[in-house]
Structure formats: C-alpha cells, structure tokens
C-alpha cells in the first residue's frame, strides 16, 4: 500500500481525501496557495507545501510545481480531487513520467472521454444510445442548418470541449441558429481555447441522471447505482440524490450495464461517472463521462455502504475490486445540498468573507463534508463551495425530514450562504413528489419568495429583546473575532451587570 499521498486540491474535497488517507494509515500531503495557508486542508494534513500565488493557474493548476512537491515529499501517489487538474490527461502523464501513481483513470482514457465529440464517436461504435445529432464538430452554418432541419427544432448547440454550461445554446427556431452558433463558438473559444461546436436534438426539461462506475486494473467494472442531479442552476448542480425517484430496478440495470459498456469501451479504470439525459418517457441518452470523483459521491456512499475514496486508493494500488456486481445493494435514500458562499438576496452572487459564527448540525442520518471553520476567511479566488450537507434515511421522506431539521440547525454567520434556498427546495410540493427536471430550479426562483406562512408570533419579540441584550452586553457577548472590529464607541454600551462579567468568563472557557 502507498505510504504517502499528495492531494492536489483544496477545500472540502481535500479534507475528504485526507480523512480517507488517515483512515487507511497513509500519510497525507497538502499543497496550498498563498491565500490558503489557513485553510482547513492544511490544518488536517501531515505535511503541507506552498505552491504559489492565489491564481489557480500559478498554483493548483501548475503541473510542474505539484510534481516537484510530490518528489520533494516522496509521495507514492497523487489524488487530484475534482476540478483543477482532475481531468487533465497531461497531468496524468506527468505523474506517470515522475513515477508517482495518479489516482484516477489513465491519460488515454481521459483523452477518449475529454472531447464530447470524440466520446460520441466511440459510443456510436459501442452501441450506446445518445441524443440524435452530429458526432463531429460543425464545419459551417449551412451544415448546422441541414442537421437542425433533419432532427427538428428545438436543438442544442454544445462545445466539444465544454462543461459547466459554457459554449451551450438552446435554439428554438431557424432564425436564431446563426447568431446562436456564432455565440457558442466564440464562447467556447474563449473558455476552452477550442471553438469546436456540435449540435444535437434538445430534450425539453430533461432529467439529468448519472451512473457511478468503478473499474479495477484487472478488467472488472461495476456500477454502483444512479444519482439524480436534475436540480441545477446555470447548469451547475445544486441538490443531488440517490436513488432517483423515477428509476426502478430494471431501468437501473439497463442504465448500469450501458455505463459499464461506456467505461469498458474507453479502457477506463478507477472511479468515473456516466451522465445521461432522461426524457419524459424515461428514455435515457448518453451525455458524457466524467473521469473523476464527483462532488456528489457521498450520496452513493451512503446508499451502498461503500467508501469510494478508499476504493479509489485500493484500485490505484493495483488491487482487484473486493466485490462483484451482484454484491452491490442499495439501501435507503440520501440527498445532498451544496452549501455555497452566495448571497440569496443578491442573485446568488459569491459572498466571500470571514465566518464569525458557525453552528454545525449533527445527529441521526446527517453527514457533513466541510472545508470551513469559525474564524476562517473564505477567499475570493476559488469556487464558493463551502460544504456539503447530506441527509440519509430509510426512505426519501425521512431523508428530506432529517435534512430539513439539519438545515435549521446549520448557521453560518458573517457571510451569506444559500442555506435558505434548500429550505425552499425541500419544502416544495413538486420536490416532495419527486417531480423534478433541469428546469425546476429556474421555475422555483422565478416565483416570488413567499414569507413564512405562519411566522412564530413570539419570534420578532424574541429578536427585539435579544437585540437589546446583545447591545447591553456589548463586547462581552461578541465572538472574539468581532471584538477587534467593534471599536466604535457607540458599540461599547457600558453594562453594569455581573452578567457581563459572567459572560466574559464563559467566553474564555
């Protein structure tokens, strides 16, 4: 087994992988940029190395620096997490050249899946169903016109190198096609340095359902059930759950076998995810393969009882899968909320800053994968994902109830978060009924936010009285972090009480 693993990432996923290392008695090496010295992953690691300025290009995306830290620390393997270099074939090659094991698929498998058009060509050969359209980039506007006429409007334009909704355009009618094509091409060129765009039939309000696969280096490939990821905003996932409310055992088997075929056709190893679009008749179409551990992997872990990061490490170590397909059982239901530093009252703009108060939920059926702590300043330079809150229950209704309870316990003070959004989603009737598609969240956000139907009549009184008490106690009741900021004289309202002294003693405990 590996003695030491370098984690080429930051935030909650770096902490997640470090924990797995420690559970397996493997030493964990962190890397960090200048603004991440105080980040949680550095605190949890056994060794930590600075790798440069805040800009990801000069630190977390800098292959040379990360390889040189791997050599300096004598790490046997590198876990890339998700994002950053996780799907970068060049990085996987650089690891191989340096004699460090990359915990993930081979560079060749990544290449095969990295371009959406190339992946479509491979899938065509493997007989995998995909959305009707072109398997190659469009050469001209005329070609786009012909294909669009043949498959029928609405159509979707997509960047071959794309992801995250960039270089993507929904085209409703022929007169929109030209400007949409140009827009998609230039956006793809800017975002990915590759203007290749292809066209496919648009499935209106599809579901987005993905299948987790795992392949060892001895030819064994299994699927671990699906995740329903239809709740998206700006093509970014917000809530994920497993299993999907619409997938029955027969559909799961068919999707799973297709996903295994996709993985095998690319010579895939380690953990990966095959994404499908599902239409209203429950037909599923191959969308793309993500060649990494996904953000939402915990929901699969909870319903299968498996630890995907442990398994990734065992597979990378050359071990065969310790179980067969028929040993995989799905039990219960899990739902994940992605907690972001975003301001719900300001169109969900990022809201970095110092966390002055953090009250975290726990209790039955609650898992929290977090990269934050009280007193930490959320840097403005990276993705604003702070933590993932996952609820698990015997069935979907119990998972929802536990998650709602935990969301009410969760409090992040000092910065804005999207926690309130999840309260709205989880109490929505359509969500409770499992009626969700990729348009769900936009529709929910368009409806004006309704005030709580029955706000507790005593709550405002409690707020008024507490406001007076906090004012009266002044600095004694403030978190230590806030005291420095509270130097203006009007905040220091002299209190004559013993209570203040007692509170101060409490604080020092």
């Amino acid at each position: 087994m590996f003695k030491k693993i370098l984690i080429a990432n930051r935030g909650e996923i770096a902490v997640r992988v470090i924990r797995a290392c420690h559970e397996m008695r493997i030493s964990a090496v962190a890397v960090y940029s200048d603004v991440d010295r105080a980040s949680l992953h550095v605190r949890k690691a056994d060794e930590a190395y600075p790798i440069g300025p805040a800009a990801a290009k000069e630190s977390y995306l800098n292959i040379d620096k990360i390889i040189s830290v791997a050599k300096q620390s004598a790490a046997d393997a590198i876990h890339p997490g998700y994002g950053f270099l996780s799907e970068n074939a060049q990085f996987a090659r650089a690891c191989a050249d340096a004699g460090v094991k990359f915990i993930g698929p081979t560079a060749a498998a990544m290449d095969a899946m990295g371009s959406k058009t190339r992946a479509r060509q491979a899938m065509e050969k493997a007989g995998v169903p995909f959305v009707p359209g072109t398997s190659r980039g469009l050469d001209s506007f005329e070609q786009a016109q012909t294909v669009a006429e043949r498959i029928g409007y609405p159509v979707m334009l997509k960047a071959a190198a794309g992801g995250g909704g960039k270089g993507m355009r929904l085209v409703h009618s022929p007169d929109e096609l030209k400007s949409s094509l140009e827009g998609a091409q230039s956006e793809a060129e800017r975002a990915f340095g590759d203007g290749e765009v292809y066209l496919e039939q648009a499935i209106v309000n599809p579901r987005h359902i993905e299948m987790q696969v795992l392949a060892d280096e001895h030819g064994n490939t299994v699927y671990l059930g699906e995740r329903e990821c239809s709740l998206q905003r700006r093509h970014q996932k917000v809530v994920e759950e497993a299993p999907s409310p619409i997938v029955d055992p027969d559909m799961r088997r068919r999707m799973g076998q297709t996903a295994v075929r996709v993985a095998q056709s690319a010579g895939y190893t380690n953990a990966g995810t095959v994404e499908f679009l599902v239409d209203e008749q429950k037909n599923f179409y191959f969308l793309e393969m993500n060649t990494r551990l996904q953000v939402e992997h915990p929901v699969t872990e909870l319903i299968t009882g498996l630890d995907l990061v442990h398994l990734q490490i065992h597979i990378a170590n050359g071990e065969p899968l310790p179980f067969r397909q028929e040993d995989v059982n799905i039990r219960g239901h899990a739902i994940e909320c992605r907690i972001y530093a975003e301001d719900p009252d300001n169109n969900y703009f990022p809201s970095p800053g110092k966390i002055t108060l953090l009250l975290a939920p726990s209790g039955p059926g609650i898992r929290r994968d977090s990269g934050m702590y009280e007193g930490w300043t959320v840097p403005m330079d990276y993705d604003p994902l702070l933590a993932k809150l996952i609820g698990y229950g015997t069935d979907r209704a119990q998972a929802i109830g536990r998650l709602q309870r935990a969301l009410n316990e969760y409090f992040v003070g000092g910065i804005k978060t999207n926690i309130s959004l999840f309260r709205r989603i989880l109490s929505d009737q359509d969500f409770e009924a499992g009626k969700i598609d990729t348009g769900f969240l936009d529709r929910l956000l368009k409806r004006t936010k309704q005030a709580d139907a029955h706000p507790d009549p005593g709550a405002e009184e409690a707020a008024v009285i507490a406001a007076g008490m906090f004012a009266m106690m002044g600095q004694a009741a403030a978190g230590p972090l806030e005291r420095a900021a509270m130097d203006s004289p009007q905040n220091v309202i002299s209190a004559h009480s013993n209570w203040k002294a007692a509170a101060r003693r409490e604080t020092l405990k």
Partner: protein
Amino acid sequence: MTYEISIDGTNYRLELTQIEGRWTCRLDGREIEVDAVLARPDVISLRLGNKAFEVKCERAGTDLHLWVGSVRYEAEVRDPRSLRSRARAIDDRGPRKLTAPMPGKVVRILLREGAEVDAGTGVMVVEAMKMQNEVKSPKKGKIQKIVVREGAAVNAGDVLGIVE
C-alpha cells in the same frame, strides 16, 4: 437601560434591567417575563414565559442581525441618550456612500466623477470568485467622488465613492 429598536420599520421601546442574574423587561410598556443564557458568544438562549428561542447575532456595522430559527431580523438599536445615533439619522438624507457589496477587486469604473446618476445606475464593477457584480448608485444625484482605482482590492463595506 432603555433602547429604541426598529425592525422592518416597526419601532419598539425596550426597557431592560438585570439584577443578580434576573432580567426584567418591558416592551412598549408591557411587562414580559424573560430568562436568558448566553450559550456562547453571539448566541442567546431565551425564554419568554416558557417558550424557548435560540437567537443568533451577526454584527454589520452598527446594525445587529438577529436570527430566530431560520428567520433573520435586521435591528437598528438606538440608545436615546446617545447624540451620535440622532446625528446619524440626519446623515442618511445627505450624500450617500457607494460601498463594496463583497470583498473583491474593482475591475471597471463605468462613470466619472460629476456624472448624473439615477437610483440603480451601475457605477463600477467589482469581481470576486470569478463573478462580476455591479455597484449601483443608492440614489438619484451626482457622483461627487470616486475613491478607488481600477484594479484595487476592496473589502466588504469599504467606501468606493460618494453620491450626492
């Protein structure tokens, strides 16, 4: 102590005294039975009669944000004896500040000093976490001053300019 507290436009007059751990409280002249424990900094466990509340506090400048359950109340707390709070109320009618909504970098300044603006006109663009956010004028008027340059790093609440 007596405070004037306003929440969402409703004004309350709160009288609080605290003797040997016991609180007495009058809200708008009405006596309320209260019992409070500071559970940890910024968190009070409050009993009004036998009804229990956990109230969390965030401080934003001179305002207090109180969270009761999942509902946030923005409270302005004034000590009527303080001249400062009276002066501040008048201040709000004069020139208004443009402040940074979040920590970030000023990537573009859209208007120059002296430009006429309406309430809601974008004056500059601040970027954080790869998202761009327009800083808008809080009122109709004229840009009196812009105190940052393009490229400047700013913190949440920093003054970026003044509209009069």
